[in-house]
């Protein structure tokens, strides 16, 4: 045995070089070639994602004369701008809550109805409406429930004034309502697979073992759906938190919102020597959304584990 081995070593040396060193070289070269096809992608991402993001993060800590400072952050969390953060968080939370509850109800109802046609219609509609947002959406709602909206006028004719109370399309309540237009479909898209994935066998096994309906939900149904629901909630939150276009058209600065505030700073609507405060606020946004989306992605992985068959 060892005889053959030593013979091999001699042969390798005769060919020129230790085989082990040679194969390492080949390995490295192969590795490089394998990844070389991805270079354009990495380059593109580095320039158009990495650079802007890095710039915001770095500049958040730079003062007006390019010195390192926490001043920007201090101002960002100070009285004037702090309300933007709280306003956005409030909007995000309210929008996520309303969208999540409604979306879940629709998702669940459609899933257990068993009607294939209904399910297909809802699936397509969700896909279309989840992408309907931004500027046109604002105008749809202006046409419907704006000051001269058709629904507003129609309701006025029968004596209901929707603007008599606390509601206004051009404020917080209006945004929550308008955001539902894409939040609900988004919720349906994200939670439907989870609900569909609830196997009949689980329910039947639970019943067979003696569980009542409420026991099934308490020990099995709800624990299974909770990660999916929570993850989706976080997604909706991040979505509403970061939304810009619709809020801009409907409120344009009348209510404190972080993205809109940043936009104003960019357009130069504020004090000149606080340009990097916008950067600090940008950093705030990155952190909030990153944490939230991170939570969503983690929970999404967890729920898809159960559905992996």
């Amino acid at each position, binding site marked *: 045995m060892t005889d053959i081995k030593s013979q091999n070593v001699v042969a390798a040396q005769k060919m020129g070089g230790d085989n082990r060193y040679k194969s390492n070289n080949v390995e490295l070269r192969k590795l490089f070639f394998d990844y070389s096809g991805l270079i354009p992608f990495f380059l593109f991402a580095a320039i158009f994602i990495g650079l802007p993001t890095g710039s915001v993060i770095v500049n958040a800590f730079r003062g007006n004369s390019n010195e390192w400072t926490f001043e920007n952050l201090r101002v960002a969390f100070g009285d004037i701008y702090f309300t933007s953060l709280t306003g956005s968080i409030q909007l995000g939370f309210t929008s996520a809550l309303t969208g999540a509850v409604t979306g879940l109800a629709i998702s669940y109802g459609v899933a257990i*109805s068993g009607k294939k046609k209904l399910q297909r219609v809802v699936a397509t509609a969700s896909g279309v409406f989840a992408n309907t947002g931004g500027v046109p959406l604002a105008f749809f709602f202006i046409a419907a429930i704006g000051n001269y909206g058709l629904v507003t006028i129609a309701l006025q004719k029968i004596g209901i004034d929707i603007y008599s109370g606390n509601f206004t399309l051009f404020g917080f309540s209006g945004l929550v309502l308008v955001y539902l237009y894409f939040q609900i479909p988004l919720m349906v898209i994200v939670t439907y697979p989870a609900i569909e994935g609830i196997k009949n066998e689980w329910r039947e096994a639970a019943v067979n073992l003696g569980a009542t309906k409420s026991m099934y939900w308490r020990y099995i149904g709800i624990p299974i759906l909770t990660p999916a629901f929570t993850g989706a909630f976080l997604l909706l939150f991040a979505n509403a938190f970061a939304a810009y276009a619709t809020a801009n058209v409907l409120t344009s600065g009348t209510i404190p919102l972080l993205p809109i505030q940043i936009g104003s700073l960019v357009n130069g609507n504020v004090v000149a020597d606080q340009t990097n405060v916008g950067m600090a606020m940008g950093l705030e946004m990155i952190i909030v959304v990153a944490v939230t989306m*991170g939570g969503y992605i983690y929970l999404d992985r967890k729920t898809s584990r159960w559905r992996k068959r």
Partner: protein
Amino acid sequence: MSKVKVGSTITPKPGVGLNTWLIVGLLFFTVPIVSAALFSVQVGDGTYTLTAYSRMITDPGLSVALWLSTKLVFMTVGIVLLLMVPTVTWLHIRAQKAKRTVEFITLLPLIIPPVVTALGLLSSMPSFLKESPYLLGFAYGALTMPYTYRALDAGLNSIDVRTLVDAGRGLGASWKQVFSSVIAPNIKSAIFGAIFLAVALVLGEFVVSSLLIWNTLPVWMALVGMSDAEGAVAISVMSLLFVWLLLMVLSLLDGSRKVKINVGGV
């Protein structure tokens, strides 16, 4: 023969509740659109007119904005076809180990709010780029990445590229032949899906274009809306119709497979 109810714990049955929810849902999603359509054609005295539409179509601002948006659409689609498709294909065939990393990178535009990206572009890009609409095109390529990557990735997953490539190569085909005859036809619908997503996003993108001061369609729409509500509503209706038209064309081209549309809402 007596039939006794043994208990409805077997399969849950939806009742009146579902139907109510569905009707409310239907109203909520159709009323704004219907209102917008009516709003854009009404005169107020019961008659209907298309003046809002003709006013918008003849507005010089529209053609400028439309032209810019169209150029951006083409550029973004170009990035999808020339950067994303090869990258995702390469990823599946040659560099599977990098999948996690690439996937993470494509999720970054979802984690970093577009308003922050706009901010970052303003502060980090050289002025010659900022003065060119190409910057916007590149930015859109990056913004659409999460959706286009997902669509293409799903398409490639569904056809088990490795096996097909091995089979094709085993029969003697060159890499080019393998790609054009084996891979490309099978991911056609995924590519269409990715293109649709990119187009829809580009046509609706507001925050980056407005902060970088480019007169794209949505930016112009918002501007018009400040003085001419009817006109803005008219364009909104038109843009929605266009997107639906695009969706229909794509699903027709795609045959039986549904175009899967992913998350959105900016």
